């Protein structure tokens, strides 16, 4: 130790500047040294892996290139953007990516709604609702999502009635083991009708708005029946309008029709897509419910009390005071759930939905180019994850509390 350094105070003080000590004991030097060593170790490991990989590829008679992306894929894909087996592998991969985005986007939206409802229900004053929601969360959170997907597909979707005996709601929705078919509205060129429709909607909207305001301001007394009368009148007017519109409809309904083996027309969700969507939504919804519950509970008791003391109703307390604050607690874990949903969509492979991973896997099997294909798959998921995180972080910044 540096006891020698201790001379007399004067001698010590008169030394203009003490040496900073040998470099191997110097904080800064050590820091730099350690980092250099660390980086070298990482680079070395990566290099060794790379060399090994080249050797391994050589042994398997494979090369590293992505030229195959321009080759003809040759295999069929059941759903997604326009594609034929004569298209390239690249096109097939894009199709998979679009399918993944489609199911993830829709799934995220639906899971959010389900999770919000279930989360709030778990805090409901209604005992039965609380228990049911709790049961839902427990069951679906505690079983593997893969198992759930298989269940939704094999035990639910495939046991729907066959095409010719579809479950249906009028001509609008058909549920069969070939999937779900929805009627689709098509715009026609009849602009006059459009004008009438928009104008009518605007009129009705104003009327309803005015009436509700009236209702708000004078909730008691005989006036409260006025909106009902108004609504009745409005409905009658709407019916008349509708009859007139039907003569020159601005929208036609494209109804799914049975043609040959299958339905044609309308919006079609294949059983694979529907099962995947259902499975992901129900699974993730259970997690989001917990996130929402935790978020709501994280809002201080004082907030609820203050809001109640102001006379806000239970719904208003939730909607105006609790949820907006819960949001900032909710968003980070919610983001992870969104990412999880998107990533879990890769399990589509188990039930045959042609998502990014499934198509990629087929490509890999057909071309044997495992490393480039894997690189592509992982990069795509990574890009998706990063993009989602980015969006959510931006949103998070917006809902963050302003503090001193």
């Amino acid at each position, binding site marked *: 130790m540096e006891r020698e350094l201790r001379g007399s105070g004067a001698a010590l003080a008169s030394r203009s500047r003490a040496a900073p000590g040998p470099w191997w004991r110097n904080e800064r030097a050590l820091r730099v040294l350690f980092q250099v060593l660390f980086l070298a170790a990482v680079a070395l490991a990566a290099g060794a892996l790379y060399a090994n990989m080249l050797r391994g590829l050589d042994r398997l008679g494979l090369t590293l290139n992505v030229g195959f992306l321009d080759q003809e894929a040759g295999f069929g894909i059941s759903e997604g953007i326009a594609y034929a087996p004569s298209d390239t592998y690249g096109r097939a991969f894009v199709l998979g990516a679009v399918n993944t985005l489609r199911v993830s986007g829709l799934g995220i939206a639906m899971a959010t709604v389900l999770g919000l409802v279930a989360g709030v229900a778990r805090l409901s004053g209604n005992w039965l609702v609380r228990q049911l929601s709790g049961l839902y969360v427990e069951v679906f959170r505690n079983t593997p999502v893969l198992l759930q997907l298989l269940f939704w597909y094999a035990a639910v979707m495939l046991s729907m009635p066959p095409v010719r005996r579809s479950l249906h709601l009028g001509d609008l929705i058909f549920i069969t083991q070939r999937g779900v078919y929805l009627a689709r509205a098509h715009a026609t060129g009849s602009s006059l009708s459009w004008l009438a429709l928009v104008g009518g909607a605007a009129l009705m909207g104003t009327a309803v708005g005015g009436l509700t305001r009236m209702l708000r301001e004078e909730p008691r007394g005989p006036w409260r029946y006025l909106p009902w009368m108004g609504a009745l009148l409005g409905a009658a007017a709407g019916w008349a309008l509708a009859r007139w519109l039907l003569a020159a409809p601005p929208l036609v309904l494209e109804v799914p029709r049975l043609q040959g083996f299958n339905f044609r027309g309308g919006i079609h969700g294949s059983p694979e897509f529907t099962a995947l969507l259902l499975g992901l939504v129900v699974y993730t919804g259970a997690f989001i419910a917990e996130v929402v519950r935790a978020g709501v509970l994280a809002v201080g008791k004082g907030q609820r009390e*203050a809001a*109640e003391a102001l*006379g806000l109703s239970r719904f208003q307390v939730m909607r105006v*005071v609790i949820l907006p604050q819960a949001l900032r607690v909710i968003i980070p874990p919610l983001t992870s759930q969104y990412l999880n949903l998107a990533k879990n969509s890769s399990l589509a492979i188990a039930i045959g939905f042609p998502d990014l991973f499934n198509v990629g896997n087929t490509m890999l099997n057909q071309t044997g180019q495992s490393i480039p294909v894997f690189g592509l798959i992982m990069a795509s998921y990574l890009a998706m994850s990063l993009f989602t995180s980015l969006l959510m972080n931006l949103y998070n910044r917006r809902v963050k509390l*302003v503090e001193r």
Partner: protein
Amino acid sequence: MNPSTAAQAAGARAGKTEEPIILCQDVHKWFGSFHVLKGVSTTVARGEKVVICGPSGSGKSTFIRTLNRLEEHQRGRIVVDGIELTGDLKNVEAIRRDVGMVFQEFNLFPHLTVLQNVTLGPAWVKRQRREEAEVLGRELLERVGIPEQAHKYPGQLSGGQQQRVAIARALAMQPRIMLFDEPTSALDPEMIKEVLDVMRELAHTGMTMLVVTHEMGFAREVADRILFFDQGEIVEENEPEAFFEGPRHERTKLFLSQILHH
């Protein structure tokens, strides 16, 4: 005791003759098996200022929170401004519209601006139009001395400012009664005065006020009457002078000696 005589008694005590605005009759409350309020009976006349004090845990907060049903009482009657507090949601709503409350920890809504905090009640409960509510809100902010802070968020204000916003928020509902639960005890000493000033001013407008506080200067100056709580009961009840000069109970004396010594 018959409620009407109780009311008259209270009225007489406060030097007024109308019916009481708050009537409590043998109010009991338990938290689980813990008996917090053990038969509290009192009346408050319209316009009266009542200060409530007592040792920690004696049930002061619980008492004033039962008055607007933030806590439910289990026995006895509470009538506020002619409306009886029962399980009926309508009554609870009506009473809450009549009673403003200010908490120790302010409990402002941190995600709303100051002005939004103040206009929230009028807009959502009274269904006032926004402009109308905002005009009122600005007036109130003026009254509590922070008109320039309208568009800041609570997190950007000092404690004293926050508490003044809380008072403005409660006033925005134009309540007939204001409840204060230790409104200054979470504040730094410099800020206590600014809040007490606002309360003092409010008292002069003739508002009925129930204030839980240990600020004995304020009590002496503003209160018409002081209630001393201990272990869930009103142990002593008197006008300020009499209360401070001649406390009758041992517990009151002990408490006062501690408080005033501080």
